[in-house]
Protein backbone atom coordinates (compact mmCIF):
# COMPACT_ATOMS: atom_id res chain seq x y z
CA UNK A 1 0.00 0.00 0.00
CA UNK A 2 1.39 3.42 -0.96
CA UNK A 3 1.38 5.94 1.85
CA UNK A 4 -0.01 9.46 1.21
CA UNK A 5 2.75 11.92 0.29
CA UNK A 6 2.36 13.92 3.50
CA UNK A 7 2.74 10.87 5.70
CA UNK A 8 5.94 9.60 4.10
CA UNK A 9 8.43 11.90 5.86
CA UNK A 10 6.86 11.08 9.22
CA UNK A 11 6.96 7.37 8.45
CA UNK A 12 10.63 7.64 7.47
CA UNK A 13 11.43 9.60 10.63
CA UNK A 14 9.51 7.05 12.67
CA UNK A 15 11.56 4.26 11.05
CA UNK A 16 14.83 6.06 11.84
CA UNK A 17 13.80 6.57 15.47
CA UNK A 18 12.71 2.94 15.79
CA UNK A 19 15.95 1.67 14.19
CA UNK A 20 18.02 3.90 16.44
CA UNK A 21 16.10 2.73 19.50
CA UNK A 22 16.55 -0.91 18.54
CA UNK A 23 20.28 -0.40 17.96
CA UNK A 24 20.69 1.24 21.37
CA UNK A 25 18.73 -1.56 23.05
CA UNK A 26 20.79 -4.23 21.24
CA UNK A 27 24.05 -2.56 22.25
CA UNK A 28 22.91 -2.19 25.83
CA UNK A 29 21.87 -5.83 25.83
CA UNK A 30 25.22 -7.05 24.48
CA UNK A 31 27.27 -4.87 26.84
CA UNK A 32 25.07 -5.77 29.80
CA UNK A 33 25.39 -9.48 29.06
CA UNK A 34 29.16 -9.18 28.61
CA UNK A 35 29.51 -7.40 31.96
CA UNK A 36 27.17 -9.87 33.68
CA UNK A 37 29.26 -12.74 32.30
CA UNK A 38 32.50 -11.26 33.70
CA UNK A 39 32.54 -13.42 36.86
CA UNK A 40 32.16 -16.55 34.72
CA UNK A 41 34.75 -15.47 32.16
CA UNK A 42 37.92 -17.54 31.93
CA UNK A 43 40.94 -15.37 32.72
CA UNK A 44 42.96 -17.15 30.05
CA UNK A 45 40.45 -16.11 27.36
CA UNK A 46 40.64 -12.48 28.47
CA UNK A 47 44.46 -12.45 28.51
CA UNK A 48 44.56 -14.11 25.09
CA UNK A 49 42.18 -11.53 23.61
CA UNK A 50 43.94 -8.64 25.32
CA UNK A 51 47.29 -9.79 23.98
CA UNK A 52 45.88 -10.16 20.51
CA UNK A 53 44.09 -6.82 20.46
CA UNK A 54 46.72 -4.73 22.24
CA UNK A 55 49.77 -6.25 20.60
CA UNK A 56 48.33 -6.09 17.09
CA UNK A 57 47.43 -2.41 17.47
CA UNK A 58 50.54 -1.34 19.41
CA UNK A 59 52.84 -0.70 16.41
CA UNK A 60 50.11 1.27 14.65
CA UNK A 61 49.18 3.36 17.69
CA UNK A 62 52.82 3.72 18.81
CA UNK A 63 54.14 5.05 15.51
CA UNK A 64 51.10 7.30 15.07
CA UNK A 65 51.60 8.67 18.61
CA UNK A 66 55.30 9.31 18.09
CA UNK A 67 54.70 11.29 14.92
CA UNK A 68 51.65 13.04 16.38
CA UNK A 69 53.78 14.22 19.31
CA UNK A 70 56.41 15.50 16.91
CA UNK A 71 53.97 17.30 14.63
CA UNK A 72 52.11 18.92 17.53
CA UNK A 73 55.41 20.12 18.96
CA UNK A 74 56.41 21.45 15.54
CA UNK A 75 53.12 23.23 14.89
CA UNK A 76 52.99 24.65 18.40
CA UNK A 77 56.57 25.87 18.25
CA UNK A 78 55.92 27.65 14.94
CA UNK A 79 53.25 29.73 16.66
CA UNK A 80 55.13 30.19 19.91
CA UNK A 81 58.36 31.29 18.16
CA UNK A 82 56.56 34.43 16.98
CA UNK A 83 55.81 35.22 20.62
CA UNK A 84 59.25 34.17 21.83
CA UNK A 85 57.70 31.47 24.03
CA UNK A 86 59.37 28.34 22.68
CA UNK A 87 60.22 27.30 26.21
CA UNK A 88 56.64 26.28 26.94
CA UNK A 89 56.23 23.96 23.95
CA UNK A 90 56.40 20.97 26.29
CA UNK A 91 53.57 22.36 28.46
CA UNK A 92 51.18 22.70 25.55
CA UNK A 93 52.16 19.46 23.88
CA UNK A 94 51.85 17.40 27.05
CA UNK A 95 48.49 18.78 28.17
CA UNK A 96 46.91 18.52 24.72
CA UNK A 97 48.26 15.00 24.23
CA UNK A 98 47.22 13.67 27.62
CA UNK A 99 43.80 15.29 27.83
CA UNK A 100 42.69 15.07 24.24
CA UNK A 101 44.83 13.91 21.39
CA UNK A 102 46.22 10.59 22.60
CA UNK A 103 42.81 9.28 23.82
CA UNK A 104 40.97 10.40 20.70
CA UNK A 105 43.37 9.16 18.03
CA UNK A 106 44.00 5.93 19.91
CA UNK A 107 40.24 5.42 20.06
CA UNK A 108 39.80 6.17 16.36
CA UNK A 109 42.61 3.78 15.43
CA UNK A 110 41.17 1.15 17.76
CA UNK A 111 37.72 1.61 16.20
CA UNK A 112 39.29 0.86 12.83
CA UNK A 113 41.35 -2.06 14.05
CA UNK A 114 39.81 -3.69 17.13
CA UNK A 115 36.23 -2.58 16.38
CA UNK A 116 36.40 -3.88 12.82
CA UNK A 117 38.12 -7.05 14.02
CA UNK A 118 35.44 -7.66 16.64
CA UNK A 119 32.56 -7.01 14.24
CA UNK A 120 34.02 -9.20 11.49
CA UNK A 121 35.05 -12.04 13.82
CA UNK A 122 31.69 -12.19 15.57
CA UNK A 123 29.99 -11.62 12.22
CA UNK A 124 31.72 -14.68 10.81
CA UNK A 125 30.71 -16.67 13.90
CA UNK A 126 27.11 -15.63 13.28
CA UNK A 127 27.16 -16.09 9.50
CA UNK A 128 28.79 -19.53 9.55
CA UNK A 129 26.35 -20.92 12.10
CA UNK A 130 28.98 -21.24 14.85
CA UNK A 131 26.94 -19.08 17.23
CA UNK A 132 23.90 -21.32 16.80
CA UNK A 133 26.08 -24.43 17.14
CA UNK A 134 27.49 -23.03 20.39
CA UNK A 135 23.99 -22.58 21.75
CA UNK A 136 23.10 -26.11 20.71
CA UNK A 137 26.15 -27.48 22.54
CA UNK A 138 25.22 -25.63 25.71
CA UNK A 139 28.15 -23.22 25.40
CA UNK A 140 27.55 -19.80 26.93
CA UNK A 141 28.21 -17.25 24.15
CA UNK A 142 28.34 -14.41 26.67
CA UNK A 143 31.02 -16.13 28.69
CA UNK A 144 32.98 -17.68 25.83
CA UNK A 145 32.87 -14.90 23.24
CA UNK A 146 31.44 -11.62 24.48
CA UNK A 147 32.97 -11.02 27.89
CA UNK A 148 36.64 -11.68 27.02
CA UNK A 149 36.42 -9.56 23.87
CA UNK A 150 34.51 -6.72 25.49
CA UNK A 151 36.92 -6.36 28.40
CA UNK A 152 39.95 -6.88 26.16
CA UNK A 153 38.86 -3.99 23.92
CA UNK A 154 38.18 -1.70 26.90
CA UNK A 155 41.40 -2.54 28.75
CA UNK A 156 43.34 -2.60 25.46
CA UNK A 157 42.15 0.90 24.57
CA UNK A 158 43.19 2.15 28.01
CA UNK A 159 46.65 0.55 27.82
CA UNK A 160 47.23 1.75 24.29
CA UNK A 161 46.18 5.27 25.28
CA UNK A 162 48.82 5.20 28.03
CA UNK A 163 51.36 3.97 25.47
CA UNK A 164 50.25 6.68 23.04
CA UNK A 165 50.67 9.36 25.72
CA UNK A 166 54.20 8.19 26.57
CA UNK A 167 55.26 7.85 22.93
CA UNK A 168 53.61 11.13 21.97
CA UNK A 169 55.49 12.93 24.74
CA UNK A 170 58.67 11.23 23.58
CA UNK A 171 58.02 12.39 20.02
CA UNK A 172 57.58 15.96 21.22
CA UNK A 173 60.76 15.69 23.26
CA UNK A 174 62.73 14.37 20.28
CA UNK A 175 61.57 17.23 18.10
CA UNK A 176 62.15 19.71 20.90
CA UNK A 177 65.74 18.63 21.41
CA UNK A 178 66.52 18.01 17.72
CA UNK A 179 64.92 21.00 16.08
CA UNK A 180 64.04 23.56 18.75
CA UNK A 181 67.13 23.20 20.88
CA UNK A 182 65.18 22.39 24.06
CA UNK A 183 67.14 19.95 26.23
CA UNK A 184 65.39 16.65 27.10
CA UNK A 185 65.82 17.28 30.83
CA UNK A 186 64.22 20.72 30.55
CA UNK A 187 61.46 19.25 28.36
CA UNK A 188 60.72 16.54 30.96
CA UNK A 189 60.72 19.09 33.75
CA UNK A 190 58.20 21.20 31.87
CA UNK A 191 55.97 18.16 31.35
CA UNK A 192 56.10 17.37 35.07
CA UNK A 193 55.28 21.00 35.86
CA UNK A 194 52.48 21.32 33.32
CA UNK A 195 50.61 18.08 33.90
CA UNK A 196 48.10 17.91 36.75
CA UNK A 197 46.54 14.66 38.00
CA UNK A 198 43.22 15.91 36.58
CA UNK A 199 44.74 15.98 33.08
CA UNK A 200 45.75 12.32 33.37
CA UNK A 201 42.37 11.39 34.89
CA UNK A 202 40.48 13.11 32.06
CA UNK A 203 42.51 11.32 29.39
CA UNK A 204 42.29 7.89 30.96
CA UNK A 205 38.61 8.04 31.93
CA UNK A 206 37.77 9.09 28.38
CA UNK A 207 39.82 6.24 26.96
CA UNK A 208 37.78 3.76 29.02
CA UNK A 209 34.58 5.35 27.70
CA UNK A 210 35.88 5.14 24.14
CA UNK A 211 36.79 1.49 24.68
CA UNK A 212 33.23 0.75 25.79
CA UNK A 213 31.86 2.51 22.69
CA UNK A 214 34.17 0.57 20.33
CA UNK A 215 33.34 -2.75 21.98
CA UNK A 216 29.60 -2.02 22.08
CA UNK A 217 29.41 -1.28 18.35
CA UNK A 218 31.65 -4.26 17.56
CA UNK A 219 29.41 -6.61 19.54
CA UNK A 220 26.20 -5.14 18.22
CA UNK A 221 27.11 -5.29 14.54
CA UNK A 222 29.06 -8.52 14.90
CA UNK A 223 26.17 -10.43 16.41
CA UNK A 224 23.47 -8.90 14.20
CA UNK A 225 21.82 -11.59 12.07
CA UNK A 226 23.34 -11.93 8.60
CA UNK A 227 22.25 -13.66 5.43
CA UNK A 228 25.39 -13.36 3.32
CA UNK A 229 28.99 -12.15 3.13
CA UNK A 230 27.87 -8.76 1.84
CA UNK A 231 26.07 -8.18 5.13
CA UNK A 232 29.24 -9.10 6.98
CA UNK A 233 31.22 -6.40 5.16
CA UNK A 234 28.46 -3.84 5.59
CA UNK A 235 28.09 -4.53 9.31
CA UNK A 236 31.85 -4.33 9.84
CA UNK A 237 31.94 -0.95 8.11
CA UNK A 238 28.96 0.24 10.17
CA UNK A 239 30.71 -0.79 13.37
CA UNK A 240 33.75 1.33 12.50
CA UNK A 241 31.91 4.36 11.15
CA UNK A 242 29.30 4.45 13.92
CA UNK A 243 31.87 3.98 16.68
CA UNK A 244 34.14 6.71 15.21
CA UNK A 245 31.25 9.14 14.96
CA UNK A 246 29.98 8.43 18.47
CA UNK A 247 33.53 8.68 19.88
CA UNK A 248 33.84 12.23 18.51
CA UNK A 249 30.48 13.24 19.96
CA UNK A 250 31.13 11.45 23.26
CA UNK A 251 34.54 13.12 23.53
CA UNK A 252 32.92 16.49 23.96
CA UNK A 253 30.24 15.23 26.32
CA UNK A 254 32.68 13.31 28.49
CA UNK A 255 35.12 16.23 28.64
CA UNK A 256 32.35 18.53 29.86
CA UNK A 257 31.09 16.02 32.45
CA UNK A 258 34.52 14.98 33.75
CA UNK A 259 35.70 18.57 33.97
CA UNK A 260 32.53 19.53 35.84
CA UNK A 261 32.89 16.64 38.28
CA UNK A 262 36.64 16.63 38.82
CA UNK A 263 37.21 20.34 38.30
Amino acid at each position, binding site marked *: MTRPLLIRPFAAAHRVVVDFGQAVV*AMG*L*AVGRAIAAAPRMKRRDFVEQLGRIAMSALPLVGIAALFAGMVIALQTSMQLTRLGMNAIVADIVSVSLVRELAPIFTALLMAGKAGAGLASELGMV*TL*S*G*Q*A*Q*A*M*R*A*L*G*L*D*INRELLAPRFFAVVVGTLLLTIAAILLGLMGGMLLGSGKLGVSPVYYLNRIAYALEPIDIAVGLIKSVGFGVIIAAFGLRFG*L*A*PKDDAAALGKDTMRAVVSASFVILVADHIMTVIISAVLG
Partner: protein
Amino acid sequence: MSLPPAYRVRDLDWRLGDDFSLSIPYLDIVSGKSTVILGRSGSGKSSLLSLLGRVEGGYFIGSGVATGAVHLHLDAHSIPLELLALSERQLLRRRVRGVGVGFVFQREGLFPDRDVLGNVTWALALAHPKLSASALQAAGEAVLADVGLAPDRRVATLSGGERKRLALARALALDPPVLLLDEPLTGLDPEALGGLRALLLKLREVGRTIVMVTHQRDDVLALADEVVFLDAGRVILAGPVAALEAELDRFFAGEMPRGPEAGSALPSTEVSE
Protein backbone atom coordinates in the same frame (compact mmCIF):
# COMPACT_ATOMS: atom_id res chain seq x y z
CA MET B 1 7.33 -50.17 31.85
CA SER B 2 6.65 -48.15 28.72
CA LEU B 3 8.66 -44.99 28.28
CA PRO B 4 6.85 -41.66 28.18
CA PRO B 5 7.14 -39.83 24.87
CA ALA B 6 10.40 -37.89 24.54
CA TYR B 7 8.40 -34.84 23.49
CA ARG B 8 4.79 -33.94 24.10
CA VAL B 9 3.76 -30.95 22.01
CA ARG B 10 0.44 -29.48 23.04
CA ASP B 11 -1.47 -26.56 21.52
CA LEU B 12 1.67 -25.12 20.01
CA ASP B 13 1.13 -21.92 18.09
CA TRP B 14 4.22 -20.14 16.87
CA ARG B 15 3.90 -17.22 14.48
CA LEU B 16 6.93 -16.86 12.23
CA GLY B 17 6.44 -13.74 10.15
CA ASP B 18 3.27 -12.37 8.63
CA ASP B 19 2.30 -15.33 6.48
CA PHE B 20 3.49 -18.42 8.32
CA SER B 21 2.79 -20.03 11.64
CA LEU B 22 3.54 -23.40 13.13
CA SER B 23 0.35 -24.67 14.65
CA ILE B 24 0.47 -28.10 16.26
CA PRO B 25 -2.37 -28.96 18.65
CA TYR B 26 -1.03 -32.40 19.46
CA LEU B 27 2.17 -34.31 18.71
CA ASP B 28 4.13 -36.93 20.59
CA ILE B 29 7.66 -37.97 19.69
CA VAL B 30 8.26 -41.54 20.78
CA SER B 31 11.20 -42.20 23.12
CA GLY B 32 14.05 -44.46 22.07
CA LYS B 33 12.99 -44.48 18.43
CA SER B 34 13.90 -42.67 15.27
CA THR B 35 11.31 -40.17 14.02
CA VAL B 36 11.58 -38.55 10.61
CA ILE B 37 9.85 -35.25 9.85
CA LEU B 38 8.77 -35.00 6.23
CA GLY B 39 7.25 -32.15 4.30
CA ARG B 40 7.74 -29.78 1.40
CA SER B 41 10.29 -26.99 1.61
CA GLY B 42 8.88 -24.24 3.79
CA SER B 43 6.47 -26.53 5.61
CA GLY B 44 8.09 -25.76 8.97
CA LYS B 45 10.23 -28.87 9.50
CA SER B 46 13.43 -27.09 10.50
CA SER B 47 11.46 -24.54 12.53
CA LEU B 48 9.80 -27.34 14.50
CA LEU B 49 13.17 -29.04 15.00
CA SER B 50 14.78 -25.79 16.18
CA LEU B 51 11.97 -25.29 18.69
CA LEU B 52 12.34 -28.88 19.98
CA GLY B 53 16.04 -28.11 20.50
CA ARG B 54 15.34 -24.55 21.73
CA VAL B 55 17.90 -23.14 19.33
CA GLU B 56 15.39 -20.93 17.51
CA GLY B 57 16.09 -17.26 16.86
CA GLY B 58 19.40 -15.41 16.94
CA TYR B 59 21.42 -13.59 19.55
CA PHE B 60 19.37 -10.40 19.39
CA ILE B 61 16.38 -11.50 17.40
CA GLY B 62 13.73 -13.57 19.05
CA SER B 63 11.53 -15.71 16.84
CA GLY B 64 8.19 -14.45 17.94
CA VAL B 65 6.28 -15.78 20.88
CA ALA B 66 5.41 -19.45 20.85
CA THR B 67 2.38 -20.36 22.92
CA GLY B 68 1.34 -23.79 24.11
CA ALA B 69 3.65 -26.36 25.63
CA VAL B 70 6.57 -28.53 24.56
CA HIS B 71 7.34 -31.07 27.29
CA LEU B 72 10.65 -32.89 27.13
CA HIS B 73 11.17 -36.20 28.94
CA LEU B 74 14.87 -36.99 28.89
CA ASP B 75 14.34 -40.35 30.56
CA ALA B 76 11.67 -42.33 32.38
CA HIS B 77 12.74 -41.10 35.82
CA SER B 78 13.28 -37.40 35.21
CA ILE B 79 10.68 -34.71 35.67
CA PRO B 80 9.46 -33.42 32.28
CA LEU B 81 10.71 -29.98 31.33
CA GLU B 82 8.39 -27.44 29.77
CA LEU B 83 10.83 -26.11 27.19
CA LEU B 84 8.90 -23.00 26.19
CA ALA B 85 8.90 -21.79 29.79
CA LEU B 86 12.69 -21.90 30.05
CA SER B 87 14.79 -18.78 29.44
CA GLU B 88 18.19 -18.86 27.71
CA ARG B 89 19.86 -18.69 31.11
CA GLN B 90 17.78 -21.56 32.48
CA LEU B 91 18.48 -23.66 29.38
CA LEU B 92 22.20 -23.13 29.97
CA ARG B 93 22.06 -23.78 33.72
CA ARG B 94 20.04 -26.96 33.37
CA ARG B 95 22.21 -28.12 30.48
CA VAL B 96 19.13 -28.93 28.46
CA ARG B 97 20.99 -28.20 25.23
CA GLY B 98 24.08 -30.24 24.51
CA VAL B 99 23.91 -32.65 27.46
CA GLY B 100 20.16 -33.26 27.24
CA VAL B 101 19.43 -32.63 23.58
CA GLY B 102 22.07 -32.86 20.86
CA PHE B 103 21.54 -30.87 17.68
CA VAL B 104 23.23 -31.25 14.32
CA PHE B 105 22.54 -28.43 11.90
CA GLN B 106 22.35 -28.70 8.14
CA ARG B 107 25.07 -26.02 8.08
CA GLU B 108 27.38 -27.65 10.60
CA GLY B 109 28.73 -24.52 12.32
CA LEU B 110 32.12 -26.11 13.02
CA PHE B 111 34.72 -24.05 14.87
CA PRO B 112 37.47 -23.40 12.29
CA ASP B 113 40.00 -21.98 14.76
CA ARG B 114 40.08 -25.31 16.62
CA ASP B 115 41.26 -28.65 15.31
CA VAL B 116 38.94 -31.63 15.03
CA LEU B 117 39.60 -32.72 18.62
CA GLY B 118 39.13 -29.16 19.89
CA ASN B 119 35.72 -29.02 18.23
CA VAL B 120 34.66 -32.05 20.25
CA THR B 121 36.28 -31.22 23.59
CA TRP B 122 35.22 -27.58 23.92
CA ALA B 123 31.69 -28.35 25.06
CA LEU B 124 32.81 -31.58 26.72
CA ALA B 125 35.15 -29.65 29.03
CA LEU B 126 32.31 -27.35 30.05
CA ALA B 127 29.90 -30.22 30.68
CA HIS B 128 32.49 -32.17 32.70
CA PRO B 129 34.66 -29.54 34.39
CA LYS B 130 36.32 -32.12 36.65
CA LEU B 131 37.73 -34.15 33.77
CA SER B 132 41.51 -33.86 33.43
CA ALA B 133 43.02 -32.73 30.13
CA SER B 134 44.16 -36.26 29.34
CA ALA B 135 40.73 -37.72 30.15
CA LEU B 136 39.10 -35.07 27.95
CA GLN B 137 41.45 -35.91 25.12
CA ALA B 138 40.78 -39.63 25.52
CA ALA B 139 37.01 -39.08 25.54
CA GLY B 140 37.21 -36.85 22.48
CA GLU B 141 39.41 -39.28 20.60
CA ALA B 142 37.05 -42.16 21.41
CA VAL B 143 34.08 -40.30 19.90
CA LEU B 144 36.12 -39.31 16.87
CA ALA B 145 37.20 -42.94 16.39
CA ASP B 146 33.50 -43.89 16.33
CA VAL B 147 32.91 -41.54 13.40
CA GLY B 148 36.25 -42.37 11.75
CA LEU B 149 37.99 -39.00 12.04
CA ALA B 150 41.62 -38.25 12.98
CA PRO B 151 41.77 -35.87 15.97
CA ASP B 152 44.59 -33.68 14.67
CA ARG B 153 42.96 -32.76 11.36
CA ARG B 154 42.18 -29.13 10.67
CA VAL B 155 38.55 -28.21 10.04
CA ALA B 156 39.45 -26.37 6.84
CA THR B 157 40.74 -29.60 5.24
CA LEU B 158 37.62 -31.69 5.95
CA SER B 159 35.37 -32.88 3.14
CA GLY B 160 31.60 -32.42 3.22
CA GLY B 161 31.04 -35.91 4.65
CA GLU B 162 33.75 -35.46 7.24
CA ARG B 163 32.26 -32.15 8.31
CA LYS B 164 28.90 -33.84 8.88
CA ARG B 165 30.59 -36.60 10.84
CA LEU B 166 32.45 -34.10 12.99
CA ALA B 167 29.22 -32.21 13.68
CA LEU B 168 27.62 -35.49 14.76
CA ALA B 169 30.66 -36.45 16.86
CA ARG B 170 30.54 -33.06 18.57
CA ALA B 171 26.93 -33.66 19.57
CA LEU B 172 27.54 -37.31 20.54
CA ALA B 173 30.49 -36.44 22.76
CA LEU B 174 28.04 -35.06 25.32
CA ASP B 175 26.05 -38.30 25.14
CA PRO B 176 22.61 -36.69 24.88
CA PRO B 177 19.61 -39.04 25.14
CA VAL B 178 17.84 -37.02 22.43
CA LEU B 179 19.42 -36.20 19.08
CA LEU B 180 17.91 -33.71 16.63
CA LEU B 181 19.31 -33.84 13.11
CA ASP B 182 18.50 -31.30 10.40
CA GLU B 183 19.12 -32.97 7.04
CA PRO B 184 22.29 -34.73 8.19
CA LEU B 185 22.61 -36.78 5.00
CA THR B 186 21.99 -34.09 2.39
CA GLY B 187 24.66 -33.40 -0.21
CA LEU B 188 26.93 -36.35 0.58
CA ASP B 189 28.69 -38.62 -1.90
CA PRO B 190 27.64 -42.33 -1.80
CA GLU B 191 30.60 -43.40 0.34
CA ALA B 192 30.12 -40.66 2.93
CA LEU B 193 26.38 -41.25 2.86
CA GLY B 194 26.83 -44.98 3.55
CA GLY B 195 29.22 -44.32 6.45
CA LEU B 196 27.04 -41.74 8.13
CA ARG B 197 23.87 -43.76 7.60
CA ALA B 198 25.56 -46.78 9.23
CA LEU B 199 26.49 -44.58 12.17
CA LEU B 200 22.93 -43.35 12.57
CA LEU B 201 21.66 -46.91 12.36
CA LYS B 202 23.99 -47.83 15.21
CA LEU B 203 22.59 -44.97 17.30
CA ARG B 204 19.06 -46.06 16.51
CA GLU B 205 19.84 -49.63 17.56
CA VAL B 206 21.06 -48.54 20.99
CA GLY B 207 17.72 -46.84 21.59
CA ARG B 208 18.65 -43.19 21.37
CA THR B 209 15.76 -40.88 20.56
CA ILE B 210 16.43 -39.41 17.14
CA VAL B 211 14.35 -36.77 15.39
CA MET B 212 15.51 -36.11 11.86
CA VAL B 213 14.46 -33.88 9.00
CA THR B 214 15.11 -35.33 5.56
CA HIS B 215 13.92 -35.27 1.97
CA GLN B 216 15.31 -38.69 1.03
CA ARG B 217 13.14 -41.78 0.76
CA ASP B 218 16.16 -44.03 1.39
CA ASP B 219 16.80 -42.29 4.71
CA VAL B 220 13.23 -42.90 5.80
CA LEU B 221 13.31 -46.55 4.80
CA ALA B 222 16.69 -47.15 6.43
CA LEU B 223 16.40 -45.10 9.59
CA ALA B 224 12.85 -44.21 10.51
CA ASP B 225 10.58 -45.93 13.03
CA GLU B 226 8.06 -43.11 13.06
CA VAL B 227 7.18 -40.45 10.56
CA VAL B 228 5.56 -37.03 10.91
CA PHE B 229 4.16 -35.27 7.84
CA LEU B 230 4.11 -31.49 8.02
CA ASP B 231 2.36 -29.17 5.61
CA ALA B 232 2.15 -25.38 5.92
CA GLY B 233 3.07 -25.57 9.59
CA ARG B 234 0.47 -28.23 10.42
CA VAL B 235 0.96 -31.91 11.26
CA ILE B 236 -1.23 -33.70 8.80
CA LEU B 237 -0.28 -37.24 9.69
CA ALA B 238 1.99 -39.01 12.15
CA GLY B 239 2.63 -42.58 13.09
CA PRO B 240 4.82 -45.67 12.60
CA VAL B 241 6.45 -46.10 9.21
CA ALA B 242 5.00 -49.58 8.84
CA ALA B 243 1.46 -48.18 9.10
CA LEU B 244 2.04 -45.33 6.69
CA GLU B 245 3.68 -46.98 3.70
CA ALA B 246 0.99 -45.90 1.25
CA GLU B 247 1.21 -42.30 2.48
CA LEU B 248 4.99 -42.42 2.12
CA ASP B 249 4.61 -43.62 -1.46
CA ARG B 250 2.21 -40.79 -2.15
CA PHE B 251 4.56 -38.23 -0.55
CA PHE B 252 7.59 -39.33 -2.55
CA ALA B 253 5.44 -39.33 -5.70
CA GLY B 254 4.98 -35.60 -5.12
CA GLU B 255 1.61 -35.50 -3.32
CA MET B 256 0.93 -34.66 0.27
CA PRO B 257 -0.70 -37.57 2.09
CA ARG B 258 -4.18 -37.04 3.44
CA GLY B 259 -4.91 -37.33 7.13
CA PRO B 260 -7.70 -39.59 8.37
CA GLU B 261 -9.89 -36.52 8.67
CA ALA B 262 -9.01 -33.93 6.07
CA GLY B 263 -7.71 -30.72 7.59
CA SER B 264 -7.39 -32.03 11.10
CA ALA B 265 -4.20 -32.91 12.91
CA LEU B 266 -3.80 -36.51 13.94
CA PRO B 267 -2.50 -37.33 17.40
CA SER B 268 0.58 -39.38 16.62
CA THR B 269 0.24 -41.57 19.69
CA GLU B 270 -3.15 -42.73 18.49
CA VAL B 271 -1.40 -44.16 15.51
CA SER B 272 1.78 -45.30 17.13
CA GLU B 273 0.42 -46.89 20.25
